[in-house]
């Protein structure tokens, strides 16, 4: 059945060549001619690049000249340029939702590259379907909602710190949530940074202090986000601030409490290489510089016995210790969220063949970093962990847990540069008479100044062994030995080392699954958070209003992290600075007369976008579904499930979909030629 055509409909059809992307397979001229033969078509053209300036101007001019009231553009995926064409059409005075994009690239020329004739027929069919549908489209308006001009930044590492500073300096209010007692993250644990060998703490702490002091930043440490509701521009976030049992306003950071505490606790900041106390300041240069009590170790908190210990309370001159401190729940309203939750280091005990966890002299790169740092467990002296003497031979082994289909397939990006840096630091600290080797697969020194850094390492007589060992073995005294086939010289070398440093890769953090669910942030196959587009939109999630910064999106070094963080901040500013945003109108809509209040849609909606409202119907109160437009993502679940057809997605009513089916079947059974 051919739908009734309004005499008033004047449709413009534009078939894009997309260079040769479409035209190389599809006969675009034939498709345009075919389109011309369909009823209701006023204009049918084909052109090389419809998305280009002349292409868009063509549409604009034709709308005016031919009084077009519907546009069909047969081109690449709507995900590419639908927005562009909507804007072009709006500028010409036509409602932007009277545009239909027909995908001749991803759906025709690319998959059917071997069959150009059939591809052309399919293109014609898709165009006729598009034409049938566009006739039934209705003009729609974008809703404007006001937005909160403040941003939640989750994660207080360098990414979160940088983003917070950029936002705060731009006049935005920032809530910086960090789960540790201090901000600083991974960068605070580093000794020096490559390739400049800047002292990490020296370049980081000024930023930490700035962000801690900034009037626009509310720093919430010991805190985690526990719930996120709402939608872009209007998020309602619940933050749980765990008690540190010390009053932040009173503590002066003198550390007298730490000195008197009798309970020894593994020092997490030092990668458990040393011990701290149950009450302590989390890290050197901590912001805030306030002590915190670990409730799993504190004797009084564990036993809940008020007569036990209490030495810190006695010692504290500022009377800052508050053992009755309770967790606090904080509700925030924010317009945007930047996820900067960082990454973990691969646990090499998953690869027993390298002896990590069994042999004390096999350590990880992050452990080496703490050992090398002057504020670390050995005061910056590089020591063989077992004998505690300076090592005579150090070997670095690359790609541990990375580029490995048994663990993580991706390259961790920083492993090579970290080992180069650590090798250079070892040479500087231990002198010429120590043998330093790096066993590598490929040595990746890709960034600015990085290749020069690699040269510097070689100039310092650091040996580069082109080959990775199969396993590492230990003698009774704890020194290590292993064979490696060196592919540069084709020699089987036996290496002895008293210290082996494994270049463990960066992996998604332990709670990435929780983060993903909490913020509706998808994950990529490698486990990290997924960006909206790998090339063009690397700073945001596909969920509107959620941005990404730093290693939580993919492992990266400090320059890239800082760039991404500033970029994410700019994106958030872009989104929120005008105080309001427009929402796409392709949402669900309820016809109250058809709604029976069965609540099936409410139960299915994954975005919690349907509410049941009480309404007066013929004297009785009944429930009717109502769509919260701002939350609705237009997924269509409700529409598919609704037994009465009361709830529909704008532009995706049954009629609007079925008319395409009819057009497709008509095309399939016709013998070509005019359908008039």
């Amino acid at each position, binding site marked *: 059945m051919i739908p009734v055509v309004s005499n008033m409909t004047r449709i413009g059809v534009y078939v894009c060549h997309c260079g040769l992307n479409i035209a190389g397979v599809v006969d675009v001229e034939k498709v345009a001619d075919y389109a011309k033969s369909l009823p209701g078509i006023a204009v049918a053209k084909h052109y090389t690049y419809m998305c280009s300036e002349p292409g868009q101007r063509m549409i604009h001019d034709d709308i005016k000249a031919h009084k077009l009231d519907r546009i069909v553009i047969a081109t690449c995926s709507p995900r590419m340029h639908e927005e562009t064409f909507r804007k072009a059409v709006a500028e010409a005075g036509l409602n932007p939702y009277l545009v239909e994009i027909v995908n001749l690239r991803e759906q025709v020329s690319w998959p059917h590259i071997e069959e150009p004739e059939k591809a052309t027929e399919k293109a014609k069919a898709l165009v006729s379907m598009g034409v049938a549908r566009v006739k039934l489209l209705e003009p729609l308006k974008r809703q404007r909602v006001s937005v909160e001009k403040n941003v939640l930044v989750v994660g207080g590492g360098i990414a979160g710190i940088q983003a917070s500073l950029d936002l705060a300096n731009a006049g935005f209010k920032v809530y910086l949530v960090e789960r540790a007692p201090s901000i600083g993250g991974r960068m605070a644990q580093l000794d020096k940074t490559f390739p400049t060998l800047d002292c990490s703490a020296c370049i980081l702490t000024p930023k930490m202090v700035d962000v801690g002091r900034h009037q626009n930043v509310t720093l919430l440490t010991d805190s985690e986000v526990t719930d996120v509701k709402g939608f872009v521009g209007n998020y309602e976030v619940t933050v749980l601030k765990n008690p540190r049992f010390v009053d932040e306003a009173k503590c002066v950071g003198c550390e007298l409490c730490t000195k008197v505490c009798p309970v020894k606790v593994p020092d997490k900041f030092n990668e458990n290489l040393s011990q701290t106390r149950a009450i302590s300041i989390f890290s050197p240069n901590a912001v805030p510089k306030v002590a915190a009590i670990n409730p799993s170790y504190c004797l009084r908190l564990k036993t809940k016995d008020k007569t036990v210990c209490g030495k810190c309370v006695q010692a504290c001159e500022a009377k800052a210790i508050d053992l009755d401190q309770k967790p606090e729940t904080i509700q925030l309203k924010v317009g945007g969220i930047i996820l900067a939750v960082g990454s973990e280091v691969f646990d090499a005990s998953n690869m027993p*063949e390298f002896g990590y966890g069994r042999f004390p002299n096999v350590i990880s790169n992050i452990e080496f970093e703490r050992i090398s740092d002057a504020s670390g467990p050995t005061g910056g002296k590089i020591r063989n962990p077992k004998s505690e003497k300076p090592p005579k031979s150090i070997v670095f082994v690359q790609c541990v847990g990375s580029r490995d289909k*048994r663990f993580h397939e991706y390259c961790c990006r920083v492993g090579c540069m970290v080992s180069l840096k650590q090798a250079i630091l070892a040479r500087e600290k231990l002198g010429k008479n120590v043998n330093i080797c790096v066993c590598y*697969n490929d040595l990746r020194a890709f960034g600015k100044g990085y290749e020069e850094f690699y040269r510097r390492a070689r100039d310092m007589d650091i040996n580069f062994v082109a080959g*990775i060992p*199969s396993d590492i073995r230990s003698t009774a005294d704890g020194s290590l030995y*292993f064979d*490696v*086939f060196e*592919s540069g010289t084709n020699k089987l070398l036996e290496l002895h080392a008293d210290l082996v440093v494994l270049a463990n890769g960066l992996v998604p953090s332990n709670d990435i699954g929780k983060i993903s669910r909490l913020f509706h942030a998808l994950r990529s196959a490698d486990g990290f958070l997924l960006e909206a587009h790998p090339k063009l939109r690397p700073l945001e999630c596909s969920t509107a209003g959620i941005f990404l910064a730093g290693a939580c999106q993919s492992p990266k070094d400090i320059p890239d992290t800082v760039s991404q963080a500033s970029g994410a901040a700019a994106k958030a500013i872009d989104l929120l600075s005008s105080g309001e945003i427009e929402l796409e109108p392709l949402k669900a809509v309820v016809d109250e007369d058809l709604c029976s209040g069965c609540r099936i849609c409410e139960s299915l909606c994954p975005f919690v976008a349907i509410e049941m409202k009480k309404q007066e119907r013929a004297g009785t109160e009944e429930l009717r579904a109502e769509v919260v437009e701002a939350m609705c993502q237009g997924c269509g679940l409700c529409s598919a499930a609704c037994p009465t057809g009361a709830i529909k997605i704008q532009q995706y009513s049954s009629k609007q979909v079925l008319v395409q089916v009819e057009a497709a079947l008509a095309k399939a059974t016709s013998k070509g030629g005019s359908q008039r």
Partner: protein
Amino acid sequence: MSLTDLMSMAKPNLESREKILAKLRRRELINCFLCIKCTSGCTALKLLELKPHEVEKLVNFGFVDELASSDIVWACATCLKCIQRCPQKASPYHVIMALRNLAVEREARVPEAYMKAVSQILENGLAEPIQKVTTRKMETCDRENLKLPKIKPPKESFQSVFLKALEEK
């Protein structure tokens, strides 16, 4: 492929490479990126100079014929460390086995013991001949005086069906 090994003037043989790939059933089994872990830990490297990474790369290039007629493919101890530790799920073990099969097909150099084993199996089902052994006190023992049950040979149909199986490529 337009490349030549200037030491031997050999050119890759893509047909032979296809033969090996067909035997491997999984392309990734030759997807080596030269981390050299396999060779670093190869049981047969020190004594017999077997370099599994080299076998992988040669096959990937197409230098199959020389390998199939060499002694080196018979040097593998089948310890399986190479597959276990390979980060790219390449499998020098399977590549070597495929090369051995190809060598047999082409009637190239094959250690006698393997063909002996095959004829032994055809003859009585087992790959090894039944032996008498001696105790530390130099007494001779066999299954009978050790009270072990008699060995039950395969039924008559076995030989012809096994021969059929041997004809499959």
